[in-house]
């Protein structure tokens, strides 16, 4: 029973760790290039996140399944074939059924073949772990990446265009434009810089700074707790010694 509980905890960690503690974009600083390029709209970021999930989960599961079959001499070429297959699949499917998303993502969709998160998870995890663990790890990384893309995209779309647009990429969503900083009366507080790559860097930098500040705050808190615990232990020991002396 104890072993089973431990395993469940490990599974949970495999899924949860990449979402926040080891977020591929915000903590490991991987996959930044497409993140800056495709986060000009929320829909595009969600689209990229979903396609990324298909590629990462699919390739990780398959690599894990074949981990005992693939000879170590051709591991990397085999992984690249598998990843490229999944990338081509999502490319074909998006071109056929989500053409606006396909056009919006452009070359960055093809570049998933050499994305360091995808190749990194294959090399670091899937090739030496079971299918279920690899699935959870890939899903966790994908969700973490999707959340990171969304955070940047929300800020950039609002600041860069002044509106939130839905239905431009996904044809099944009714086209809706929600004015936030730009109104039909002519009032426009948007800053077009944020729709450009430079704006992406600025938002990414600010989010990174916020995360760093949060981490430092957490560390300070932990340190303070440790100090308080040490002080309490010292006081307790002191009181114990004093008590013993009194009794003597």
């Amino acid at each position, binding site marked *: 029973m104890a072993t089973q509980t431990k395993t469940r905890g490990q599974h949970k960690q495999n899924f949860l760790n990449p979402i926040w503690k080891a977020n591929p974009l915000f903590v490991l600083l991987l996959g930044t290039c497409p993140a800056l390029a495709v986060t000009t709209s929320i829909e595009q970021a969600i689209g990229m996140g979903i396609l990324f999930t298909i590629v990462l989960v699919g390739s990780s599961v398959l690599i894990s399944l074949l981990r005992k079959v693939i000879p170590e001499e051709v591991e990397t070429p085999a992984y690249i074939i598998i990843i490229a297959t999944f990338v081509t699949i999502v490319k*074909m499917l998006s071109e056929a059924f989500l053409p606006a998303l396909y056009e919006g993502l452009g070359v960055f969709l093809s570049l998933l073949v050499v994305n360091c998160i995808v190749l990194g998870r294959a090399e*670091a995890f899937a090739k030496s772990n079971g299918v279920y*663990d690899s699935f959870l790890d890939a899903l966790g990384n994908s969700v973490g990446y999707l959340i990171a893309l969304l955070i940047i995209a929300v800020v950039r779309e609002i600041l860069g265009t002044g509106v939130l647009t839905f239905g431009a990429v996904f044809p099944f969503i009714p086209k809706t434009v929600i004015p936030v900083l730009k109104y039909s009366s002519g009032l426009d507080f948007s800053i077009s810089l944020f729709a450009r790559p430079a704006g992406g860097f600025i938002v990414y930098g600010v989010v990174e700074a916020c995360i760093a500040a949060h981490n430092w705050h957490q560390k300070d808190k932990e340190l303070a707790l440790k100090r308080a615990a040490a002080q309490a232990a010292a006081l307790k020991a002191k009181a114990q010694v004093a008590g013993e002396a009194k009794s003597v």
Partner: protein
Amino acid sequence: METMQNENKVQNPAPKPKNEPLHWLMVGGILSAIGLVSALVLTALNLVTDPVIQNNNAKKQLAGYRAIYENCAAVSDPVTIDDNPELTEYYIAYSDSAKQQQIGYIYNSKTITVKSYGNIHAMVGIAGEGDNVVLGKVYLVEDSLSYKNTFETGYVEPYNKNPSEETLAAVKCGATFGAQALNGIISAAREHFIQNFGDSFVEPLSTDSQTIWGEEWQSDWIKETYLSNYPYARKAYRFFEDDSLYGEWGQLITTKYSSGDDIIRMTIGFQGTETDVQWGKMVLTQTQVSDVEALNAFVTSYNAAPSEEALATANDGSLAILKSMALDAKAAFVAAGGLQSTERRFGELESDIAAISSPKVYSGQTQKGDHGDLATAYRSWSVYSDAEKTTEKAKIYKMRVQMSVDHPVSSDPSAYLPEHIQSDTVYLIALSGDKASPNVDHMLVINDSSGRNKTITDYINGFQNDNVEDGVVGTDATYTLKGIWTGLKLAKSLYAGE
């Protein structure tokens, strides 16, 4: 990495001695098998997605065609255009999927790079018959200009609302370079249409101008402009008063009627403004109708006293058509804003002008400056505050300064950067008062093709009588403005002698 801590390492069995060739065969086999499975999966998926993708592309292309011709149902196979810097191919657009009803042509442009601002790629609609051009809408296949919004709202949208020569020419929209590039694409499409689907008639301009104006004009003082979207008017020939090509003297508008074997080509002259059109004579350049005699007789009677009223009697047969052609030519003249004469600008130099004298035309009145500049005086006018021309308010001089010089010149050793300065400025000067020391009432730029356009325009248009020549030093357009002073000195010397 913390995830490594969670890894369930696969325990490899103890290594066995390898049969090398067999091992490598197996390695190659496994890799090939993965590749083969991958290829099979992708092939199968391609069979499903390819028709959808083809359908999407066709829909997208049709959407582009429909942005140009709303009722477009099909297009012909593309016809490649060779050796054209702007165009790649054209299609014939049809309103029915059986491709029986032709509605016009769609020209596909190359991807044009607009300096460092980005690219545009457009499809242009051109319709009409023969040399009767009807400009159609534009569809932007690609627009990656950094001034995309300004370009599209300032130029493309107004043009698409009303495709015409006027909206085509309005390139100064805040994204001038992009607008000029699109203007170039549309003009190239129109030129291709005229050359390939027009006719080979050559307008006898020399004879026309002799008959209509009474004198032959220098061919390099004439500019040709296509007229689009008119039933009869085809081209406007703008006759300029000198080689500066600013200051129109008159316009000839060519018209054409064709129906079956019947053809009438007529050219008519216009002067005046859009609100006060002065009708000129007309000339028949081609007549292929049954009542040629009546036509010739009517033209002779019209030319005796050209006016709109003189057309009133032309109501039957070819005469009615000729009248429509003349009125269409007038409409084109009015739409272009009438004659853009030099005299129309005088109101910007002097207020309350009641009368203007005939121009005094100069020949060889030039003056060289010290900085490779050459000032030329073209003509002058007296402007009066009374209609009887008794009280002269000022004399107005039309000047031009052309400069081509390497900077620094030997006379200016303190200059720092080697630069070739080339400028060409046409401007007006209004002088009044004492002959020996005249007052410079105003100066006005008509055209400036230097690279310092704003500085020069601001200086000339804001010129004050107490300005001194040394004041131009350090203005960012020192040499050209010194040339402007050379022109001013020449004008003053002419004023002193008159």
